[in-house]
């Protein structure tokens, strides 16, 4: 699959490109709006990652012109603004998702994948990580065949970690998915919940599944996995 990145900050473009390339996508980078439109005309893309602060044209202008050419392609916006107003404007102008700088590349990859699938994370009813079973229909969790009782927040946290199986999710990402943006910056709440979740899911068992990646976040993965 092919992704077009329209971003004038070379380092940001390269960083995002590297992250997406590592996931097996083919990447094209344009550093101006005009170049981006020309590239979009020349080839078919499955996703466009667009920085709104382009040097040669207004991001929303680019969005509208791109939509005329490619009505279907999903667009993920990167913005240094985070005014509620511009969020609404972006989505109305035809963006499918948006991210505010600074963002974690990991989160961008998660969102890009969701857009490429054209829908929310896969709807597998039962997810398995080692001997942990998460039944998203019944909202039940079992480990080694034993029922584990979780509060709704703990369940939501575990399910979010499981849906990003073996990928590191940042505390900010967890915050936005499990809580909401009013809690922005209150990342210690994530740590507290993770600790409680570990007490139920990991502590009674020899194999620890919830890992901490210091400064980055958490991931749910089998022992021995990279």
């Amino acid at each position, binding site marked *: 699959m092919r992704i077009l990145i329209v971003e004038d900050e070379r380092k940001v473009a390269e960083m995002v490109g590297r992250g997406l390339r590592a996931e097996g996508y083919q990447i094209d980078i344009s550093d101006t709006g005009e170049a981006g439109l020309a590239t979009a005309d020349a080839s078919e893309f499955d996703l466009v990652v667009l920085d709104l602060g382009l040097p040669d044209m207004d991001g929303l202008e680019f969005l509208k012109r791109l939509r005329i050419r490619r009505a279907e392609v999903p667009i993920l916006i990167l913005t*240094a603004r985070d005014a509620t107003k511009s969020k609404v404007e972006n989505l109305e102008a035809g963006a499918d998702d948006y991210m505010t700088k*600074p963002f974690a590349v*990991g989160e961008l990859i998660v969102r890009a994948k969701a857009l490429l699938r054209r829908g929310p994370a896969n709807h597998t009813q039962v997810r398995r990580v080692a001997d942990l079973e998460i039944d998203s229909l019944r909202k039940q969790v079992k480990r080694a065949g034993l029922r584990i009782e979780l509060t709704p*927040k703990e369940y939501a946290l575990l399910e979010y970690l499981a849906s990003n199986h073996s990928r590191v999710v940042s505390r*900010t990402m967890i915050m936005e998915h499990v809580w909401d943006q009013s809690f922005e910056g209150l990342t210690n709440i994530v740590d507290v919940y993770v600790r*409680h979740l570990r007490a139920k899911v990991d502590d009674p068992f020899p194999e620890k599944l919830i890992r901490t990646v*210091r400064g980055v976040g958490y991931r749910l993965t089998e022992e021995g996995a990279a």
Partner: protein
Amino acid sequence: MNTRSIRFRLAAWHAAFSAGIFVVLAGLLFVQVRAYLETTLFETQARRARQIAETLVAQLPKGGEAYLGRQIETLYAPELGDRFIRVTGPDGSVIYRSGPPADGSFDPARVGSLHDGGSVKPTRIDTLSDGSKLLIASFGASPGGRGTYWVEVGTSGEPVDQLVSRLLILLGLGLPVVALAASGGGYLLVRKALAPVEEIAGKAEVITQHNLNERLPVPRTSDELERLSIALNHMITRLDVAFGNSKRFVADASHELRTPLTIVQGELEALAKDTATPPEFREQLGSLLEEVERLARIVQQLFALSRLDAGEANADSDVFDLSALVVGTADQMALLAEDKGITVSKDAQGPVFVEGDRSRLKQVIVNLLDNAIKYTEPGGSVSLRTEIKGGLAILEVSDTGAGIPAEAIPHVFERFYRVRGDRGTSDTGAGLGLAIVKSICGAHGGKVEVKSIVGNGSLFRVSLPLSEKTNPDSTAPF
């Protein structure tokens, strides 16, 4: 009445000045009228004295002294005309003296002699021993070279005294009237002239950093007040520009910091996740990432504050129940308190509807509750209360924590302010949380106050205007 006010002082000066001028003019008038009346009377007496001297005294050698007396009686009837006439011979003997006047205003016998005080004066005022006053004119004649005969004609000075004393009374009565009229009129005049000052002052009072786009009223009077208000408006414009520049600076700075932060965070994350990175480096990278996160948070908060300053808070405005939001938010944060062994109690006195940006007001609750939990020792308690009081929606967050020292209280809502000796071990905040709370409350037309006793705890009270639409359903179509 403020005796230091320009209005009062101008009116008082005006009254004093008017009264002073009145007194001077009245004095001059009094002296002039008196002098005029006396001169006129003297002239009349002098004319008569001369008449008698030239006609009757001239006939003295022919007719004799008795004849003179009779002639005077016949022609001038001094007693009936309340007049004094005396003719003195060259040897000083009185040839004729009129009798007591009909009105008894003076006693002719008490009139001093002609030569009192040396030479004969053409006019004099003779104060009699009984106190009555006589205005006397003298005229000399020398018929047939027999020496000088003096004719004195006088009249009572009382009518003049009466007239001038009546004038004095009149002027005396006029003084308070003039003073009163001058002060009253002056006061009204000054008040009218200074009315725009009141208006300008009233408007200037309500201009703060949040409504610097407003201007003072300019009275179109082409006077000093118009100039003053224009000058003040220019000053407000300069302030507006300066404030705007500083706000824009914060917004621009936080905006410009985002891209480099993204790059730093992204590259560090890539290294931290890279399995080729030695574990000891990963620790350090993690520490760096934590600081980047903190930096990003400050940038984010500064940006949020600059947006609130720009008045963009209520982009998403709806009517909702503050009590429900408080209860819901507290539930979401319950584990945070539980983990620290702090009990959180909620006391919601029924629905409290407010209108505003729900996620921003939720941030107010989150920040206050987070602070309360942060500064309360394990085993303490935090309570949340919502109620309607005095037509306002009230939210109170109180704790049994460390409290805030009195000297720090006026500053807790300032940006980057931190209470000295603040032992926030896990606190990575920059001291912007309460500034954001204040800005959000302000943007919603409300306010936040704090009361605290060191060692006993703190109480934060948010008051917001109640929504006019008490039921959110009423805004929905049927």
